[in-house]
């Protein structure tokens, strides 16, 4: 299934008196059908996650598979539904700095409490 990256046409002139207008931040993203396709992909990934949890796979296959699916769903929502893929990179930097700071801090916390030794 391919995602339609067609940009919604702007409903006002982009160029006035020969000077290109700054691109408005909301004039990008997918078409409505493109968003529906993304939602179908997300639903399939969720179904796959639930199926895997009942499949009785060994932990060294099951855990990475679930974590990869979780990361893929996260990235898909952030990139397409939250428009980070199409927006100014500064928004991506702001959000991912918070996310990676949280990941770093709480990985250190879990290591301090020897969480991974117990798991």
């Amino acid at each position, binding site marked *: 299934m391919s995602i339609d990256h067609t940009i*919604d046409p702007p*409903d*006002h*002139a982009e*160029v*006035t*008196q020969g*000077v*290109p*207008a*700054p*691109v*408005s*931040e*909301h*004039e990008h*993203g997918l078409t*409505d059908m493109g*968003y529906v396709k*993304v*939602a179908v992909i*997300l*639903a399939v990934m*969720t179904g796959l*996650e*639930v199926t*895997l*949890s*009942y499949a009785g796979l060994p932990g060294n296959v099951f*855990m990475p598979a*679930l*974590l990869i699916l*979780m990361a893929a*769903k*996260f990235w898909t*929502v*952030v990139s*397409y*539904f*939250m*428009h980070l893929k199409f927006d*100014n990179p*500064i*928004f991506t930097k*702001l*959000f*991912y*700095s*918070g*996310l990676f*700071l*949280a*990941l770093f*801090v*709480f990985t250190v*916390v*879990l290591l301090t*409490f020897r*969480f991974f030794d*117990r798991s």
Partner: protein
Amino acid sequence: MADIATPTTPASEPDTTAAVALGTEPDIHGMEPTPGAHDDHGDAHGGGEHGHATSTGLSNNKLAMWMFLGSECLLFGGLISTYMLYRGRHEGSPSPSQLYNIPLTSVSSFVLLMSSLTMVLAVSAAQRHDDRNTTTWLTVTALLGATFVGAQVFEFTEFYHEGLGFTTNLFGSSFFTLTGFHGVHVTVGIIMLMALVGMINRGKIPGNKAEVVEMIGLYWHFVDIVWIIIFTLVYLIPS
């Protein structure tokens, strides 16, 4: 009598050079706004219909929202890691694998995921200035969110009847704190959605309407991505 230095720039031509160098003023020579370019959509530079151009050329509201969401990662990171540490401490109550109702949680996860779709369709309609579809999709999003919260209330009630309360053990405390915080976020989102529908219907949205819908959309999608993590780490991966 000391000489008084006279300004080199005439009073009618304010000197913007210093402000540009400091990054507090847009370079009017390099970024001349196009007449009429943002009459309908609000200011592409982020100030809204009555706002100001910003030094970054981006919406300050949007920057603030992304910064807020980045900080929310730290809040939920703390709650999730606390749950991970204490999920094995379920003395005096059934274990998580005995309590969790995966089919119910899967359906509520699907409902929340679909609410993200309806939210993005509302944003898309708002960008087309289609108020009728915007309010319809926002209402559907709020209803899907309410369904999710209803399922969570049902789940909490079931757990309580099974013997797991907030103070029963560390597992119960960390589980109810994490999922309860998320539920409160969804509830706040529903209130914002319904308030937005009311304001659109009364024509009381100040500034750029599409941007307001997009801001609430960003919050709603964030609530969804937090649930994507909770669903996998809390429900699907056994302790």
